[in-house]
């Protein structure tokens, strides 16, 4: 647990490209050999605002995919929503900008040893790490189905090439502007009943993760979810990013989503107690 970040390094990395994709920015960043130790579910922590920044904390972003190209060496892809000052600054970094990143951080998705059927559920930019995950699962021989949801079409992140590794992809938007109208969680119960799903992998807003937990509770389906809490340090030393989680004996403790997560067992997270005093 505590040595989860033993591969992490703090490096100055060059932005290889920055493209707008709907309401997001796709950033490709050169991280050299570190790309080889990144696993789906890991995240990066990035310094924002430049040298004279009044923003003193790093911002966390899920690694969407890594690849090694002959031109740039190892690169990672991030999908960033320009939200507040920090993410806006990052989205404004052009090709050639040098940024300070710590990578890779946190607990990755667990990969089944057997070629089982899995369902990947992504909300908003939460779909980003699922494509890299799909490749790994696909390589393991798993059947991979994917559901993506967002409020509206421009918040769906579903790159063409990402679809290669999935057996099916269905999209849901609340306003019906893309795919089916409705929530990404709507079809899950039926899919569990109809198919032989062993694991659901999810990433997205906490409410979505919690809803998936409610659906999987009482079933045999394992729910591996990547949670997202406000993080001051990203490396396990500040205790700001905690969630109530029960251990095997049923004791509830506050676990750090940066180091004991971001990938957690959905059944252990005490969703109703998040943000409450224990």
């Amino acid at each position: 647990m505590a040595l989860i970040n033993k591969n992490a390094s703090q490096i100055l990395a060059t932005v290889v490209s920055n493209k707008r994709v709907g309401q997001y920015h796709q950033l490709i960043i050169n991280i050299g050999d570190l790309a080889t130790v990144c696993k789906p579910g890991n995240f990066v922590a990035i310094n924002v605002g430049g040298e004279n920044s009044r923003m003193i904390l790093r911002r966390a972003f899920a690694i969407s995919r890594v690849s090694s190209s002959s031109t740039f060496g190892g690169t990672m892809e991030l999908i960033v929503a320009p939200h507040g000052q920090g993410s806006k600054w990052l989205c404004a970094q052009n090709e050639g900008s040098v940024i300070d990143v710590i990578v890779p951080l946190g607990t990755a998705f667990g990969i089944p040893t057997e070629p089982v059927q899995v369902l990947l559920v992504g909300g908003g930019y939460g779909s980003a790490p699922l494509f890299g995950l799909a490749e790994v699962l696909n390589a393991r021989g798993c059947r991979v189905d994917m559901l993506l949801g967002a409020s509206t079409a421009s918040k769906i992140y579903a790159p063409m090439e990402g679809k290669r590794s999935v057996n099916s992809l269905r999209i849901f938007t609340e306003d019906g502007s893309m795919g089916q109208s409705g929530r990404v969680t709507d079809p899950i119960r039926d899919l569990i009943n109809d198919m032989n799903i062993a694991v659901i992998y999810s990433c997205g807003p906490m409410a979505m993760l919690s809803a998936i937990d409610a659906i999987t509770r009482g079933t045999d389906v394992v729910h591996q979810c990547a949670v997202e809490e406000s993080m001051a340090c990203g490396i396990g030393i500040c205790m700001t990013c905690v969630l109530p989680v029960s251990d095997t004996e049923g004791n509830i403790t506050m676990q750090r989503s940066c180091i004991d997560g971001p990938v957690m067992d959905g059944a252990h997270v005490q969703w109703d107690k998040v943000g409450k005093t224990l």
Partner: protein
Amino acid sequence: MTALDFSTTLGNAWFPAPTFTASGCASSGRELSQFFDLSDIGGVVTKSVMMKARTGRPTPRMAETPSGMLNSIGLQGPGIDAFIAKDIPFLIEQRSRIIVSIAGETVEEYSTLARKLRSVSGISAIEVNISCPNVENRGLVFACDPEASKRVIDGVRRTIGGELPIIAKLSPDVTDLPSIARGVVDAGADALALINTVLGMVINVDTMRPHLGGKTGGLSGPAIRPIAVRAIYQVHAAMPQVPILGMGGVTSGKDALEMIAAGASGISIGTASFGNPTAIMSIQNELKELLVTKGFTSMRQAIGFAHRPEEV
């Protein structure tokens, strides 16, 4: 490069470097040990430990502010027994110097914690975090109450005996810091840790409610550095013989030197480690270089330098 004596002392404890983690900003060292060797810094000040395991405050527990941050952790931790069983052995194995920070809800609890630690070997000093609500006095923070502060330190002193140095950690949120400082020194503190966080609040204008689960939080980071430097300067002026572990927004060797010149014998680095896991290492290196450039042959020559009359 001339040989620089970088070592320092806090009470009768000797440290090879004047640079420490700040309590609550390094957990018990395990996570940072993945980024540098814990024996390379002055020492690890562990997260304030209480008697029982605590889950702490509800989230959100942090808010970034201009050049600073608020936290409201509420002293989440494993409790003293688990801490002694698991964390101390790890730190000893890493050959880290250890300063254990303790926190209690009653005067009695502090003494009990001291009793538990008395027989543990490998500890260099005890930092007594008195910026905690006193459940016996309407939740008034010990460090804001001169009498309660003294009683806590007095109790710890009696329990621990004369060997282990006691560092009393004070809050800047008081009218008269030097008098609180004098009180705890009279009660038996060998050194002072200055400053704990400053009480603050952020309101989320979306919800129009306090952003933190705990409503208020402690302000740390560069924003408070001028307050910390002033506190150290004031207290050193009042009691030049008492060593001070300075902290509050140190991010560079220059910042550390500012505090040393104000009167600090050692520096704790807290929030800076959140932004850069290896912050302490670079601060150490920058500080060494600065001291050498300025012609000091020992770090200790610079302590309290800003109080000397200007040469004309």
